[in-house]
């Protein structure tokens, strides 16, 4: 399963979200999950199973599929619940 964190530049906030997702994936001991980050314009529906994005970019994610919209990209508790729910949706937890 692949999680993809996205932001406008693919340099700043998406990288922060990716790091925090990686921490949480380790914490939850989710098997076979890869985590990457990129800029939103280079992502397509095939790029990942679950897409993570801050709420400002919600409109730009139409058609991508399973998109998780985050209120704050540094709120690890919010992210942990979102990762858990995504893992459940995809049968990994």
């Amino acid at each position, binding site marked *: 399963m692949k999680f993809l964190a996205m932001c406008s530049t693919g*340099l700043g*906030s998406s990288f922060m979200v990716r790091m925090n997702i990686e921490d949480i994936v380790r914490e939850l001991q989710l098997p076979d999950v890869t985590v990457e980050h990129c800029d939103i314009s280079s992502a397509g529906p095939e790029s990942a199973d679950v897409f993570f994005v801050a709420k400002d970019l919600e409109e730009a994610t139409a058609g991508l599929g399973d998109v998780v919209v985050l209120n704050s990209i540094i709120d*690890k508790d919010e992210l942990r619940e979102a990762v858990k729910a995504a893992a459940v949706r995809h049968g990994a937890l």
Partner: protein
Amino acid sequence: MLSELLTEEKIRFSSDSLTWRQAVTQVAEPLLAAGDITPGYVDAMIDSIAAGGTYIDLGYGIALAHARPESGAVRTAISMLRLTDGPAPLLDRPEHAVDLYFCFAAVDATAHTQAMSSLARILSDTETREALRAATSAADVTKLITRFEEDR
């Protein structure tokens, strides 16, 4: 390590009432003065926010202003501006009330990754984030960042 980049002279506190443009200009000022970024980098950050780039709002009143390396990043660098007399909301929108601005410039992928991961860990740690927001001097900020890094 963030403590090596975010040194006391890169940290400012201001009690002025600022617009977001002024705040971004002021947070970038120590980097501009040190030659870490070009004036074009400041313009690129402001243009990207003006174009709707409120994604730099990380939550908890914290924003990370940045542009692409090719926009004028000379050295990898970070600065901070704490607004003590109220927020300078991004695009004047109350839902983006930011009173702790960071400015970030990176020249290559490796340096970028290291500095960014250090900042992300600190800001995602609830206790340290609250201590950072409560800090009242540049010395306080560097002390708590050093302590955070030593503890890990």
